[in-house]
């Protein structure tokens, strides 16, 4: 709200007329108290220079609440002076060195020819001073409401995190049971086959150890050839192609395989199922681990952490996700650092998985992710770059916000829990995270102190 011109002129006139007298001027040093609350005060001060804090105590013994800061050209003692009770409503403390000019109740009035009293001369300026104070109070309330909302949200997240950690624990038990059960089943079948149908054992082993390597479309393409070459129906051809995606693979399996192919396929498929179960259980464990991170309030840092190792572990966890991407590694010789290994792995997983998703979703040809680590005198850097479409400039700041996602379809929830967590972990390690992104070259650079 702009102050009308006449009011500014009125203020200048008051300042010139009443607050320039050298006898009515005081200086106080920073942190000195000008007035105590309820102290007798017959003066109206104008701040010429510096800042003073006005605070108020609601009940004796309670702490003083900061109410307002009086700055240059603002008044102190308005209430005590104009109400006529001459008691300071505030405790006034100098924040910086202050120069104050004042009038007191006996200061004579200078006539301006229009007004009859000093109070009348001051009224408009005082009214606008009070309304400015009200606006400031309203803004403070608004800010407090927002802070409260943010706090409530943070509390919600923390509660969710704790709940998630509890659920994660329960899930771990369930996954453990499934994992053990799978292992026992696999061992039993393996033993049983060796003893009763040893010719099928190798196919079971092959499926169990390696799973299916061929993609669905590879399988379909080879299946067409097998349909003709082996004179089998297309369903059987498809199942053979899953084991032997190349004709050379079929040669390796040999005549023996073809002689009892239906049984051999059954054995291999059972092995593959058990393989998939193992991978799925590992995947579930990893998700649980990252969910548990949410509920963790303190990180467990220790000395002797090899950053290159944490990167290798992250890549192992992401093996399935990055199978269609060319990954280049350039690991420098890094000193061991003081860090939380699990959290670092979490950071790499999030960034690498984001890169992978960007590459796959935009169907980039020759999709590449490069990881480079280097050590400097006081810090080391990890640079993870990809040749994807890049992060649009307007989103570059937003991607670190907790609620941000570009994942439109469905409720996407994988290993990655978002870049906000990455940011939090890196900052918690005393490091920094920088993003430099253009189409075809996106770089996440993480600096960690040595």
């Amino acid at each position, binding site marked *: 709200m702009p102050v009308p011109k006449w009011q500014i002129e009125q203020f200048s006139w008051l300042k010139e007329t009443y607050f320039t007298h050298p006898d009515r001027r005081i200086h106080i040093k920073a942190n000195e108290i000008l007035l105590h609350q309820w102290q007798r005060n017959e003066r109206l001060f104008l701040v010429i220079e510096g800042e003073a804090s006005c605070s108020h105590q609601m009940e004796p013994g309670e702490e003083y609440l900061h109410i307002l800061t009086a700055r240059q050209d603002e008044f102190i003692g308005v209430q005590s002076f104009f109400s006529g009770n001459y008691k300071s409503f505030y405790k006034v403390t100098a924040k910086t060195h202050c120069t104050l000019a004042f009038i007191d109740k006996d200061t004579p009035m200078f006539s301006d020819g229009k007004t009859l009293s000093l109070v009348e001369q001051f009224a408009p300026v005082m009214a606008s001073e009070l309304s400015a104070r009200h606006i400031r109070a309203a803004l403070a309330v608004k800010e407090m409401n927002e802070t409260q909302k943010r706090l409530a949200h943070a509390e919600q997240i923390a509660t969710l995190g704790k709940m998630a950690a509890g659920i994660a624990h329960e899930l771990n038990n369930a996954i453990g049971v499934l994992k053990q059960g799978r292992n026992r089943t696999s061992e039993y079948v393996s033993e049983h086959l060796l003893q009763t149908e040893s010719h099928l054992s190798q196919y079971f082993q092959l499926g169990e150890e390696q799973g299916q390597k061929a993609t669905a*479309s590879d399988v379909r393409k080879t299946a067409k050839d097998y349909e003709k070459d082996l004179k089998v129906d297309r369903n059987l051809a498809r199942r053979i192609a899953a084991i032997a995606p190349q004709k050379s693979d079929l040669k390796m399996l040999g005549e023996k395989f073809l002689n009892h192919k239906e049984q051999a396929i059954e054995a291999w498929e059972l092995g593959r199922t058990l393989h998939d179960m193992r991978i799925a259980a590992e995947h579930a464990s990893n998700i649980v681990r990252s969910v548990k991170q949410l509920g963790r309030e303190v990180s467990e840092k220790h000395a002797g952490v090899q950053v290159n190792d944490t990167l290798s572990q992250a890549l192992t966890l992401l093996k399935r996700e990055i199978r269609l991407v060319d990954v280049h590694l350039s690991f420098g010789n890094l000193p061991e650092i003081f860090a939380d290994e699990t959290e670092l792995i979490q950071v790499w997983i999030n960034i690498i998985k984001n890169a992978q998703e960007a590459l796959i*979703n935009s169907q980039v040809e020759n999709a590449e992710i490069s990881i480079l680590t280097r050590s400097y005198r006081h810090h080391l850097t990890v640079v993870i770059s990809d040749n994807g479409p890049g992060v649009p400039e307007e989103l570059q700041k937003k991607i670190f916000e907790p609620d941000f996602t570009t994942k439109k379809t469905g409720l996407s929830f994988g290993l990655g829990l978002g870049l906000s967590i990455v940011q939090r972990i890196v900052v918690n390690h005393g490091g920094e995270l920088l993003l430099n992104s253009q189409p075809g070259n996106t770089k996440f650079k993480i600096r960690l102190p040595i």
Partner: protein
Amino acid sequence: MEKINIICIDDQADVLNAVVKDLAELESHFIVEGCDSAADCEELLEEIDANGELLALVISDHVMPGKSGVEMLTELAADPRFQGTKKILLTGQATQKDTIHAINQANINHYFEKPWDKDALVNEAKKLVTEFIFEKGFNFQDFQGVIHSETLFKYLK
């Protein structure tokens, strides 16, 4: 006899294998194919059409890289070459909006949530292919073993 296909789509190979494996008992009368993306499926659709084969049923995941399952099924529903094709959405990750779209625009016949129950999935698949067989005017006696008996009675009444 006509070659009739059933297509399963899932970007996760282990899930795809499990679905295809669950449908093994339908292999006696149908060709069961697996695709790992909508694009992969579109390629197969062209092949099926070019070879003059039929497509009885598509079982698709929803959240996949590239085109989503619902988007693909919506396009399939509008494709004049595959008007009788039945559609099942098998997903653990569809939002309410996706689901509404799937019903209204993609005209899906059935919705399964992951993890699915094998018997329920196979039963539903049999029911839908039986409907397909009748709607296309095939002789149901040629499909012994894969016919859904309750659906059969409904048609024979």
